[in-house]
């Protein structure tokens, strides 16, 4: 924020910003007031309905029960085993997807022929609800970690791939020609011009991919698995332990939220850096 101001106005004005920030911390804005109020009312209503003893209420648990279940899970070692397996799957699949997506994107963005050959296939798979392929992945890679890594990969690879292609094609052709004229090899073109030029697009692809990777992991594990957060969700759901179920759902939602927020920060930073680099 401050960086942006400095770069656009030249005169640094850090003081007013910090004062405004401090004030905001003490007083709730109207937005925050209504938002927090609505959430509190919702939680209170849920708690009341959950304690009312009606038949339907038994199946939705209540906030206090969710908190209690959460404390129990967090103190036991079992939860961390499941978390670890899910993290393994998601990071394994995600790293593979980023590597393959960027590499494939470079090739498809650079070569008209490769792009032409694979474009319809990529578009068809991109428009497909990939969940339909999960049973096939289970047959191919088994019910363990392998099929989940494959699912995460499949879900995450397309946003990275498509954004890389767009990024590469948006690189200023003058820069490429200049590089060529000065005798850059194809490898140098890739590493010195094409990759840096398309980094912002690639990072937003990676951010979109993270959200999809989470979905791939959860659905893959929920479908068939022996461990992991998705496995917990389906087994807790099937045994009607709603308090515990909501706790695990919250954890998964949190993971998605934190991951995409971190990547969004990174994206903003890169954009600022790039604007500055281009401005100077």
């Amino acid at each position, binding site marked *: 924020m401050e960086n942006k101001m400095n770069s656009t106005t030249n005169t640094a004005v850090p003081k007013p910003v910090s004062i405004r920030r401090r004030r905001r911390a003490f007083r709730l804005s109207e937005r925050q007031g209504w938002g927090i109020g609505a959430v509190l009312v919702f939680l209170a209503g849920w708690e009341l309905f959950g304690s009312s003893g009606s038949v339907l209420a038994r199946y939705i648990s209540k906030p206090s029960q969710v908190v209690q279940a959460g404390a129990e899970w967090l103190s036991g070692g079992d939860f961390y085993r499941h978390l670890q397996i899910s993290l393994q799957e998601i990071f394994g699949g995600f790293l593979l997807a980023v590597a393959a997506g960027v590499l494939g994107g470079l090739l498809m963005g650079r070569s008209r022929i490769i792009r032409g050959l694979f474009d319809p296939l990529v578009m068809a798979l991109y428009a497909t*609800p990939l969940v339909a392929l999960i049973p096939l992945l289970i047959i191919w890679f088994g019910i363990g970690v392998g099929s989940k890594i494959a699912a995460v990969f499949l879900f995450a690879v397309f946003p990275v791939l498509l954004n890389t292609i767009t990024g590469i094609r948006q690189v200023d052709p003058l820069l490429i020609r200049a590089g060529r004229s000065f005798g850059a090899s194809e490898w140098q073109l890739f590493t010195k011009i094409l990759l840096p030029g398309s980094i912002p697009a690639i990072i937003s692809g990676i951010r979109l991919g993270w959200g999809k990777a989470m979905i791939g992991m959860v659905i893959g594990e929920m479908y068939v698995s022996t461990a992991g957060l998705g496995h917990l969700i389906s087994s807790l759901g099937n045994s009607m332990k709603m308090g515990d179920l909501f706790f695990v759902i919250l954890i998964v939602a949190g993971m998605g939220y934190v991951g995409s927020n971190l990547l969004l920060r990174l994206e903003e930073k890169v954009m600022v850096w790039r604007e500055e680099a281009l401005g100077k």
Partner: protein
Amino acid sequence: MKSFTSWIRKREQLLLGTLGIILVIAVWQLISDLRLINPFFISSPSQILKTAFNQTVNGDLLEDFWITVVEFVVAFALSVVLGITIGLLMGLFKRVEYTIDPFLWFLYSTPVIALYPVLIIWLGLGFATVVTLGVLFTITPIIINTFTGVTQTSPVLIKAAKSFGANRRQILFKIALPSAIPMIVTGLRIGVERTLVGVIVGELFSANAGLGFRISYYGARLQVSSLFVAIVLVIILGLILTQSLRLLEKRLLKWQEF
């Protein structure tokens, strides 16, 4: 000769794309025929075609296809009506926006599918659960886009209408809604993809009919050819839906330019 090369130039992408698809199908068939990979796992294009033909003659493939289409249409229609209404209310009344905002964020970042055990208890196995999952998947982008579209209405237009004595209802239907239409249509395009995902996931987990159920059923029985038939149908359905919405979007955006 020159005209021939320019003819190829013009259609290069189309030709290459077709070649790419043919290549993949040919390699797949070859791998299967030469048993480089056991055909039990990957089936083969010819086998899939044969299976598709048999199942179409039986009629049960079309029946499941039809069920998925109906569930999709109902879920999408519900999402559109609910999503646009909520989005409009949020755009028109600040307090509605503030109240709904946190829930929207939660719905956006939660893996909705994890709620399916609750939905099955409340709504039973099948149609209602699948449609609800479809709506939960779809409604967020439609709400957000409608809301953004309405709030981006040019204040000058509203002021002008007010000075000519327009009432709230006229402002809503004659100005806010029409100027939000391009955003809403983009929301619908994103929504279509998500509805299909929601319906297929719903069928995969909690249904006894439909393409998603077929995929799950044949997957569990290791009948890879039948599995592929259902997957290919899902791919075709996805392509038809996204392409038609894309066309609609293009048309409406063109209209906006004038």
